[in-house]
C-alpha cells in the first residue's frame, strides 16, 4: 500500500476544494502569460474576419499519463467553441485517437445545445485524422492549409511529429499556441511556434480562459505544492550533504 501517495492526493484535493470555495468569493490576479493574451485577441479577430479556429488535441488518448493533457485540451476546446459559436465559420478539432475525436464532437454538441443552436452542430467539426502519430499529423495538415484557419491551438499529447503541424501553421501566417505534457513536444514547440506553453502553463489554460473558479484554485494549489516540493528537495539535499540521511 502506498499511503504516502494517497495522503498527498487527499491533501491536494482538500486544498483544491478549500481554495475553490475561496476563489468564488475573491478574484485572484494572474501573472501575464503572453500566449493566452494573444489567444484571446486571436479568437476575437478570427470571429470578426470569418476565419476558422483549429484545435489539435494530439494522439495521447484518455488512458495513462497523457490523459490529463487531453482533458485540458477538451477544456480549452469547450471555451473556444463557446466564444466562437457566434462565428459564421465554426471551429474544428482534429484528433489522433478515437475517444478524443468522439469527446470533441460531444463537446461541440454540448456547447451548441447550451446556447440553443443545435442545428449549427456539425459532426465533422470533431475529426479523427489518423491513428498513428505521423498519419495524424499528415491528416491534420489539409485542415491547417485549406480551411482558412487563422488560429491554431495544439494542446494534448504530441511527439516530434507536431513540428509538421506547427510548421504548416507558421507557413500560413496563422497564430499558433501550443502546449504538451511531453518534453520532446515542448522542445519542438519552443523552436516551431511563437507562443509555446512550457511545463505546467498548459494546465493553467482554464484559469486564463475563465473556465471557472476551480481552475484558479488549481493554480494556487499547484503553486503551494510546488514550493513544498522545492523545500523537500532542498531539505533532502542538505540532509544528504551533512550525512544525516
Amino acid at each position, binding site marked *: 500500500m502506498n499511503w504516502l*501517495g494517497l495522503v498527498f*492526493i487527499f491533501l491536494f484535493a482538500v486544498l483544491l476544494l478549500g481554495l475553490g470555495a475561496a476563489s468564488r468569493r475573491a478574484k485572484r490576479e494572474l501573472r501575464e502569460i503572453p500566449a493566452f493574451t494573444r489567444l484571446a485577441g486571436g479568437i476575437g479577430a478570427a470571429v470578426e474576419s470569418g476565419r476558422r479556429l483549429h484545435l489539435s488535441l494530439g494522439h495521447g488518448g484518455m*488512458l495513462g499519463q497523457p490523459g490529463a493533457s487531453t482533458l485540458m485540451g477538451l477544456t480549452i476546446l469547450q471555451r473556444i467553441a463557446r466564444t466562437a459559436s457566434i462565428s459564421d465559420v465554426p471551429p474544428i478539432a482534429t484528433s489522433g485517437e478515437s475517444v478524443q475525436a*468522439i469527446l470533441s464532437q460531444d463537446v461541440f454538441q454540448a456547447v451548441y445545445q447550451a446556447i440553443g443552436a443545435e442545428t449549427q452542430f456539425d459532426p465533422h467539426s470533431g475529426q479523427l485524422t489518423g*491513428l498513428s502519430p505521423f498519419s495524424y499529423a499528415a491528416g491534420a495538415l489539409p485542415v491547417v492549409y485549406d480551411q482558412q484557419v487563422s488560429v491554431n491551438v495544439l494542446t494534448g499529447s504530441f511527439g516530434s511529429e507536431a*513540428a509538421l503541424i506547427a510548421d504548416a501553421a507558421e507557413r500560413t501566417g496563422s497564430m499558433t499556441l501550443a502546449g504538451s505534457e511531453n518534453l520532446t513536444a515542448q522542445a*519542438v514547440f519552443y523552436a516551431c511556434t511563437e507562443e509555446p506553453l*512550457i*511545463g505546467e502553463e498548459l*494546465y493553467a489554460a482554464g484559469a486564463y480562459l475563465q473556465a471557472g473558479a476551480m481552475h484558479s484554485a488549481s493554480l494556487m494549489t499547484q503553486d503551494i505544492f510546488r514550493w513544498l516540493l522545492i523545500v523537500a528537495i532542498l531539505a533532502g539535499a542538505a540532509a544528504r550533504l551533512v550525512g544525516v540521511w
Partner: protein
Amino acid sequence: MKTNLRVPFLAAISMLSGLVVLVGYFVTLPGLSDLRGLFLDWAVILTAVAAIVGVANLAKVHWRKVRTGQPGAVFSLTTLTSLVLTILVVIFLGGATSAWSLWLFNYALVPVEASLLAVLSVTLIYAFARMINRRLTIFNLIFAGTALFILITAFAWSGFDVFGLRDIRSWVMQVWAAAGARGILFGVALGAIATGLRVLIGSDRPYSG
C-alpha cells in the same frame, strides 16, 4: 440556456469510477483491486469500440471531401481506397498477421511513415533557423547552442575526443538537462493531478454538459 438531465448521472458515474480506480492504485484491497481491474478492462473495451467508430468517422470525412470535390479530394480517395483494401486483405487473406497484411505494413505503411520522418528532420532544421531569425533572445541562444553542441558531440569518432568534449556532453545532459527536465516534469505532474482531481470532483466534465 438548456439543462441537460443526463449531466448529473454521467458526472456520478465518472466520479465514482474515477475514485475506485484512483484509490485502487494506492491501496491493495481484494474487492477494490478486482473492481479497479474490471473498470480498466471496460475502459480498454470501450476504447477499442471507439477506434471502430473513429475509423468510420475518418472514412465519412474523406468520403464527403471526395463527393463535394474539395481541395485534396484525390488524397482522400487514396485514403479511402487504402482503407478498403486493407480491410479486405485482413478479412479475406488470413487476418491481421498474415503474410499479405505484413506485406502491406512493411511495404506501404512503413515507407510512408519513414518518408514523413525524413520530411520532419528537414522541417525541424528549418524551424530551428526560423526561431533564431524570429527572436534572438538569451534563452533562444542557450537552447540553440545546447542543441547544436549535443548533436555535434553525439558523433562517436573512435579515439577522437577533443578537450574532453564527451565528458562535457554527458555533464550537460546528466546535470543541466536532466535537472531542467525534472523541474518541468514536476510542474506537469502537479498540473495533471489538479486536472484529474477536477474531473473527479465533477468540476470539469469532458463530456456532454
